[in-house]
């Protein structure tokens, strides 16, 4: 059978639409059995696969502007396939890059908790289980049977709801299909967003909305060609698969580090 082009699942988040309601965070936690503690006030210990940041332009009233920025795992591809900052450093191959889907996985039963991947991730998208998960009485009945809860001492992160991909593939296989339709595999956060700010799909497929929205440039590691689209820390060469859209200059500029005199130029990409 003729091999189809590999998928590259990715996400586009329209920051002009995001209201910062946090539905994506809640949906993600419920979908993926993300553990929590009674006191979650210390945010450097909270596990939030999807985290919404609040950005401000730093200007005084009445010019103050804010922006909410949801940040899942970026599922970086690196400068060559699989050279994600985290995948390349994991000593036990407990995190892996799928050349079939572009998803960066985390194998909880393989991870021995060295946390090198956390040190390597500039997005702080990886979290360590400092405690064993403890669910409030009765809540274990609400856990998703499709996602294994994690034990103390291992790292976890957003999986782009990979179990949904597996379920969709199984369904398609039973129906005698090889290919998934765009709406068959969608992440929980995408579906939960009431503002429709999150779009998910195959970046390699020109018919998918994500491709049309950012128009990734394959010659430059998928860098967006849409003028309002950007990726976080583009200059580092991590080559993320999560794109952001904003019509506001200061928001796009907040996506990366720039020297004072530098304009926000996409041509300045270091590793390109």
């Amino acid at each position, binding site marked *: 059978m003729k091999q189809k082009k590999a998928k590259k699942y990715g996400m586009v988040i329209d920051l002009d639409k995001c209201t910062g309601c946090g539905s994506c965070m809640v949906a993600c936690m419920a979908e993926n059995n993300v553990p929590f503690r009674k006191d979650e006030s210390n945010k*450097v210990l909270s596990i939030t696969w999807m985290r919404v940041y609040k950005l401000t332009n730093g200007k005084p009233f009445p010019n103050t502007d804010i922006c909410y920025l949801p940040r899942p795992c970026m599922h970086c591809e690196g400068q060559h396939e699989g050279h994600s900052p985290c995948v390349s450093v994991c000593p036990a191959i*407990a995190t892996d890059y799928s050349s079939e889907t572009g998803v960066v996985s985390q194998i909880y039963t393989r991870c021995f908790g*060295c*946390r090198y991947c956390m040190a390597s991730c500039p997005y*702080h998208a990886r979290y*360590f289980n400092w405690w064993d998960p403890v669910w409030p009485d009765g809540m274990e009945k609400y856990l998703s049977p499709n996602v294994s809860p994690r034990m103390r001492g291992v790292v976890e992160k957003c999986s782009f709801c990979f179990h949904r991909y597996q379920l969709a593939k199984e369904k398609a296989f039973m129906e005698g299909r090889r290919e998934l339709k765009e709406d068959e595999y969608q992440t929980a956060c995408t579906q939960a967003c009431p503002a429709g700010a999150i779009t998910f799909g195959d970046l390699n497929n020109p018919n998918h909305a994500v491709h049309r929205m950012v128009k990734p440039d394959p010659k430059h590691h998928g860098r967006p060609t849409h003028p309002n689209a950007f990726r976080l820390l583009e200059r580092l060469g991590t080559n993320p698969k999560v794109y952001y859209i904003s019509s506001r200059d200061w928001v796009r500029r907040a996506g990366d580090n720039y*020297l004072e005199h530098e304009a926000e130029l996409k041509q300045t990409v270091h*590793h390109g």
Partner: protein
Amino acid sequence: MDSALIPKGVKRCPFPQFILFIAIVGAVLLWGVYAMLLCWFKGLNQTNMNDFYGFALWIWADLAVIAVGGGAFFTGLLRYIFGKDELKNIINYAVLIGFICYSSALLILAIDIGQPLRGWFIFWHANVHSMLTEVAFCLSCYFGVLTIEYIPLILENRQINKVPFFHHLGHNMHEIMAVFAATGAFLSFFHQGSLGGVAGVLYGRPFAYREGLFIWPWTFFLFTWSAAACGPCFTILITKITETVTRKKLVKDNAIELLAKISGWMILTYSIAKTADTWHWATVTVPSLGQTLMDFYSNNPFYGIWILILEIAICGFIPAFILITQKGRKNSAALWIAVFLAVTGVCINRWVMVLQIMAIPVLTFENWVMYLPSWQEVATTILPVAYGVILVAFSYRYLPVFPNEPELNPIETLPPEKEKAVEPSVELEKELKPAEA
């Protein structure tokens, strides 16, 4: 009480005094063991690490003890491969210090990982592209080499040496020690380097990231170089401390001075290389990523540019200039200052390459995050120090660690009847020579 175990021709403190010392240090050790058990049974929530500080005090301690433990491989290299014969009088102690440092590093790693029972995964499911895998393999192998280098010294204990098998085993091991010294140097080059590579390959962290040669970032070479340069200073420092505590001269000046001289030149060349690396990183790498040098040294309560000056200028060039001059090496106070500064410098470098990396925000909308270790982290970091002191104390008391000691500290002849009482019963004893592990 334990006089039959003490090497001939040397004097040791009374046994009760020795036991009291061991008990005091042992109490500290037990405190560390308690904290270690807390971490193992309750998990790493006993620490103050968090999702910004995946690496913290322990990884620094790991890198630091391995760096200062570099004295073992470099002294071994000089003694056995480059034939610097004067160093035979300090090589035993260098090996012992190295053994303590490396066993400590392995212990700390065993506490540091979230799932200690899965520690073997690093060998079984090895990712050959990961610098940490290289560290694990070379570290473990080199620890094996250090154990092999330490064993002949143990076999030279007066009572063990009476057993013909152990006597011959020790003798034969001495004969082939050059092979192990060469193996140790080879392994050390790689694991010291890969520890530098651990930080240098982090291309998502501009403070750590370095370009390099093929797959090796410049930090790979700088870490090996600094360990070879500053490791011998740690050997000298510990030797000087031991001499102060025992109130004896234990190693001849020529051995110390030669090691200090070589170390001095190594520190000087390292400091020049480190300066060049920092310069290139600050003027080329960092601006290309949209940042400036001062982004990494401002807007936080602790990490100022002072730490860079302290590391390279004060703890790099100053000890180097002291040690490369004969006047500096021969002046006891200057030598003390120089070796102390050199050891401090390499420890600061390891701190910066672990803790400061974690502290610095990369996303423009995040802030610096500071960290203070918990008492459990401090106790488990002091634990190897206590263990090291105890092992040094036992080795010093019962093994001929310092071949020059009887010569440098002659003791009065015992009355004839007492001398008879400690007369060796086996002929082999008469063949005993100071150790040259």
